[in-house]
């Protein structure tokens, strides 16, 4: 699990630089770069907040992200254990999303599975 998230401190969005795009060919191939250069977390015009998958997954382990949200509605089988008879069993409100996938299997693109449809 990446820990990038914890190490990063919030900073202001860099000052805006305008880059005019008149042709699709001027757009960068890589979605994490911008025309005229790379600005992390920003896009042409400089205001889009971009995060890649690995970074987002890294934030999952921060303490804030683990506390239950306020006002979470209780929907049996969706936000709370499936049915009354399982209420007092091992689940204890723990839902499958909370059980992180096996180590190393959910960070980085190299671990992506092949879909066979």
């Amino acid at each position, binding site marked *: 699990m990446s820990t990038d998230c914890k190490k990063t401190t919030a900073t202001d969005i860099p000052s805006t630089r305008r880059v005019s795009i008149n042709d699709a060919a001027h757009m960068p191939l890589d979605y994490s770069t911008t025309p005229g250069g790379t600005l992390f977390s920003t896009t042409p015009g400089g205001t889009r907040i971009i995060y890649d998958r690995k970074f987002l*997954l890294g934030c999952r382990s921060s303490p804030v*992200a683990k506390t239950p949200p306020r006002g979470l509605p209780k929907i049996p089988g969706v936000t709370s254990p499936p049915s009354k008879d399982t209420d007092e069993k091992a689940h204890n409100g723990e839902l499958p999303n909370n059980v992180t996938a096996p180590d190393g299997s959910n960070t980085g693109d190299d671990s992506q599975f092949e879909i066979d449809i």
Partner: protein
Amino acid sequence: MNNKFDALKDDDSGDHDQDQGSPKDGEKEKTEDEDQNIKKKSLSDVLQMVLPGAGEHPLQYNYTFWYSRRTPGRPASTQSYEQNIKQIGIFASVEQFWRFYSHMIRPGDLTGHSDFHLFKEGIKPMWEDDANKMGGKWIIRLRKGLASRCWENLILAMLGEQFMVGEEICGAVVSVRFQEDIISIWNKTAGDQATTARIRDTLRRVLNLPPNTIMEYKTHNDSIKAWEDFHGLVNPSGGL
């Protein structure tokens, strides 16, 4: 928003309401109505506007998680659809997203005929919403067992603004059905081919789909017509 380049040029303001004309105007009116409803509630409700917490990573937009499940044995209708859909919550930051996500079941473990919807705050996951009515969706049908992983990849790409189509994305849906699961992503302007092509290409990339995966684009207008045909409804104005 006519094309993505307009979107790029005007992006500086960070204002979500910069579109000229078309669906947005209607949406504004609706928002004002909703604002008035909010004013009827207590001030504390208004103060509960969702914002990123200190030190959290803000998202480009606030999003709302919804859940819906078809009531067994009752005929579907637009009204019952709206009644069956439940709001799970709104979030404004990456950390707040994980709070919700980690306390929700994975879509692959849902039972019955149910859906998770993740839409930008203010857009209802309904064809009729002003933001959606000119729009459409890319649909990918998945064999059982793939929904949880694909859904996670899809929504992470949406939250992280990987689609690069300006204001066009409305939301994403995962639909759990009897023999298959379906994921879809909705955008505002079905007629904007540059946008829909870009969404398709991004989907292939973020979902790691093999080149022969069938992806279908369906306009909400067609969805509405198909739904009306299926339910034997006749257009009141005498058409159809």
